[in-house]
């Protein structure tokens, strides 16, 4: 029974992936890609990785899908006839190479799974160390206590991606994605409910991250969703200049993480040895805000945001 569910999900993933890459329409491809991401989230849940399921649904499917959609819309705005897109190329090599690559991954993967192995040293060390830390979620432990340089640099990668994208933001994107038209009353009502609710959910995900699935990245993506809504509804307008507020939001996570990680050295502790759970929460909150701000700015295709509207 369980295996049957897994098989269904696996088959769904393969079909969706196939349709995403082989479909005629780009727009359809994006929609299918998002559905693929959501199915991936199911697969993660089945594989005993609820943290990854949350991350995949929020970041992999949600954020990537939104970014792809908005990029597609910019393409359409530059030239409306996106039907003139380059067609799929024919290549005699494509199928053999793909089969070879997939086969290689399959064979080595099966070879690894087939042998009886001892549990990983690092994994055992995490389980052992976790009991002293006061954290209940081993993944949060790995990300913020044991391998936190990875996490810090990952936030730096996100910042670098934004800064790199900023070098190619076009001038005309400073116009709002939706022309400021008369606001639909229902949208106001929706925002009034959804925005506080997403903030609540993001906070929950952040706090739950210490014991249950969740954490700064998932929370940041959820928070970004409400920012994206505000941008879409025209409440937040993209701006070309990097103003103080957004700049602060962008750098907060990286700054605070680095400063706390360095400050502990003054007390004789090793670099990045966080002094307690309060530091974990503090840094995660800052990271959540930075991630959300970065994602919203990437979505808006702008260096800054300003408020507008009522």
């Amino acid at each position, binding site marked *: 029974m369980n295996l049957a569910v897994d098989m269904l999900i696996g088959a769904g993933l393969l079909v969706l992936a196939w349709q995403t890459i082989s479909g005629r329409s780009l727009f359809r491809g994006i929609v299918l890609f998002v559905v693929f991401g959501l199915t991936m989230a199911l697969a993660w849940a089945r594989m005993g990785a609820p943290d990854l399921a949350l991350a995949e649904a929020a970041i992999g499917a949600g954020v990537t899908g939104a970014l792809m959609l908005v990029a597609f819309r910019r393409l359409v705005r530059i030239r409306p006839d996106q039907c003139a897109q380059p067609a799929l190329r024919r290549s005699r090599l494509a199928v053999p190479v793909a089969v070879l690559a997939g086969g290689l991954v399959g064979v080595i993967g099966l070879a690894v799974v087939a042998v009886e192995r001892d549990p990983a040293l690092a994994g055992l060390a995490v389980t052992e160390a976790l009991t002293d830390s006061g954290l209940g979620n081993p993944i949060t432990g790995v990300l913020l206590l044991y391998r936190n340089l990875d996490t810090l640099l990952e936030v730096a990668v996100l910042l670098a991606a934004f800064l790199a994208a900023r070098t190619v933001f076009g001038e005309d994107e400073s116009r709002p994605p939706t022309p400021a038209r008369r606001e639909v009353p*229902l*949208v106001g009502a929706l925002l009034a409910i959804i925005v506080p609710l997403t903030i609540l959910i993001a906070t929950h995900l952040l706090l739950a991250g210490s014991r249950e699935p969740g954490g700064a990245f998932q929370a940041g993506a959820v928070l970004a969703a409400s920012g994206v809504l505000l941008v879409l509804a025209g409440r937040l307008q993209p701006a070309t200049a990097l103003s103080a507020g957004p700049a602060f939001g962008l750098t907060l996570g990286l700054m605070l993480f680095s400063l706390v990680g360095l400050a502990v050295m003054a007390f004789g502790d090793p670099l990045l040895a966080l002094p307690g759970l309060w530091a974990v929460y503090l840094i995660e909150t800052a990271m959540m805000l930075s991630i959300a701000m970065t994602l919203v700015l990437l979505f808006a295709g702008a260096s800054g945001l300003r408020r507008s509207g009522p």
Partner: protein
Amino acid sequence: MSASEVLASLLLLTGGLFYLAGTVGLLRFPDVYSRLHALTKADNLGLLLVCSGLSLLAGTWRAAALLATIWLLGLLAATVSAHLIARHARAHDAAGDKR
């Protein structure tokens, strides 16, 4: 299988049927408005049935409350998005008529 489990399974199954009907409508109906009609009506009811079935299975008030919240949120999202899609479609149709 207890009575509540049977009832829950029934609810889930009916909910699934409503989803199926909504999807068939989405695929088969001719224009945006009737598609929206099929999708929002049938899926909202389907979601309600699935949520009630699941809360029966879970058997706690906490889960039931959470599922009810999910249903309400789904309702809200469906309402607003259906409204926006219909508005957009009408604006486009009007523009098309003028041309």
